[in-house]
């Protein structure tokens, strides 16, 4: 891992600009390449989906929620590591999304170090078959 060339590109989606910025800073501090998007549709239309190595997305967003976004991305990228962050863990337990495949969930407010650990773990597991 060097300071200049990121090994992985992570897409971050959150409708809250400040959360988005802080996530970008955090992921960049761990040498990831980061693409930020204010909404699900912006990511889907950006043409980035094929190039990213992981997705960190908020759940509760207007227009398209994190579940719907994950579902659509899974259709093109079935093994892409997905990390969802939510302020309403209770809502999640009430309505567990089906056909979402493998995902990680973090409840807001979370520890930045924990998020990085989860991201690293998800990427490692996904890339293990291709050493």
């Amino acid at each position: 891992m060097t300071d200049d060339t990121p090994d992985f590109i992570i897409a971050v989606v959150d409708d809250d600009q400040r959360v988005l910025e802080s996530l970008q800073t955090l992921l960049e501090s761990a040498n990831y390449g980061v693409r930020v998007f204010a909404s699900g549709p912006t990511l889907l239309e950006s043409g980035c989906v094929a190039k990213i190595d992981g997705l960190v997305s908020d759940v509760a967003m207007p227009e398209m929620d994190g579940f719907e976004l994950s579902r659509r991305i899974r259709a093109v990228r079935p093994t892409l590591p997905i990390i969802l962050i939510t302020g309403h863990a209770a809502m999640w337990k009430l309505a567990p999304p089906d056909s979402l495949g493998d995902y990680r969930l973090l409840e807001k407010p979370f520890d930045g170090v924990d998020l990085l650990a989860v991201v690293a773990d998800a990427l490692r597991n996904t890339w293990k078959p291709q050493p």
Partner: protein
Amino acid sequence: MLKTAAVVDAEEHFFLSTLSPGSAQKRIALFVVLGLVVVFALITGGLFPGTQGSRVNAFVPAYLTAMFVCDSITATLLFAEFSILRARAILVIASAYFFTALILIPYALTFPGVFTTNGLLGGLQSAACVYVLWHFGFPVFVIGYVLWKDRRPSSPAWNGSTRTAIAQSIALTAVLVAVAGFVCIAGEAWLPPIMLDTARFGPQWPYLVGAPIALISISALIVLWLRGRSVLDLWLLVVMFLYLIEVPLSYYPAPSRFSGGWYAVRIFGFSASSLVLIVLLYEIETLYARLLGAVLAQRREREARLMTGNAIAATIAHEVKQPLTAIATSAAAGFRFLDRPTPNLDRAKEAFRQIVADGHRAAEVVGSIRAMFKNDVRTRTALDVNDLIREALALEHSDLLKHRIQVEADMDGRLPEVRGDRVQVQQVLLNLITNAIEAMAVIEEPRVLRVNSKPYESDGVVISVADTGAGISARDSERIFNPLFTTKPDGMGMGLSICRAIIEAHDGRLWVAPNPPRGAIFQFSLRSRASLVSDSGAEARARL
């Protein structure tokens, strides 16, 4: 003592003695009276043979037993109503029914043919004399009831123990009946000749029996007609009419016991006795249904309120989580930039700038909560603070009971009127009481919740909620009002900060003080309507 008087005011539409009769009730009463007049006309017109009817000895004990049961139940119900309403007038009318029940005992003992051919006790005139006292006494009680009801409308409440009052009334009535019975039995020799023999009335009956009973019944009728207002008064009016109609029926067409008219009078008497009882039972059932409806409505309202409270809390929680997430995330990033072999200071500075910005944003969230409560000036109405306290205590009643918490409410009756959002102020009060209950639930007894209302700084009101819980340390006494500060394992720490936001939006203050020797006193002030008006006037002048 203020407490009880005000409770009566708020709940008086649930009591027979204070409830106004509806037009349907009045119509039914009128039909009953008209029906009685028709029956009366038929009897005097010769429906029943005026000759000596067949003497059925079993009729009298059966009739007296039924009367006794009826009047005793009526008296019990009215005594029960007194114990709730504490109005002395109710005590008088309850005693009246107890009197008519008790006086049946000397009547039965002296009536010829009930126990022995000539009556167990006394002589020929005894039963007739008891009858006179009975039928004269009841209207006197009724007149007393109506006049007492009107005499002191400002201080109707009985302050002492209701049990003592009821016991005294029962004892007094019993003594009265004992004296009456004694006079009629022991003084039989000196009594005027009402009866010729065990069946026939003498020629002086109209003057000795008829006239006094008729006069007192008419007086009672007039008093009830002029002063009566409640359902109970309406039916007492009908009862007094029955008493009046008994008089001519007893003497015409046949002045004798066991005539057709005499039997009719007994039936009238029994109707009179059961009438108020039937109405009481019917009304109790109706009022019970209404009360149940009111309780259910109140419960629904409370649930709706709690839901609003939860929704506000959830919104605030979500709003606060966003900047907190950003702060934690940026802090971790800043740390990582500094922790590298070659620290990236520019990126670290950027991360810290983000933390500062998000800190400000968290403060703004709290500010916006305050603004959220400030916006609702339109929903401000005149508040009866004592009413709010009573309502809050009623809502928390089962929790207070469950935790065996003793409640002391001391409400000042001369509070200035304050304005505010009723639901919001009620939420503050409920929140403070709930906190007090939770603080005391974990400690040893005695657990005392004291809720006071007092005038404050010449133009306002201060409400205090004191508990005997563990209390709040000096260090925590300001921090507890900060959002996210909580001492409860599952609490969000928003309660008191919202409470303070609400009270400050009402131009009031919320503070906490120790409650020696143990516990905490939360107090909040609200300003009176007048001072708000003058303030806005000053504001307008300042703007000019």
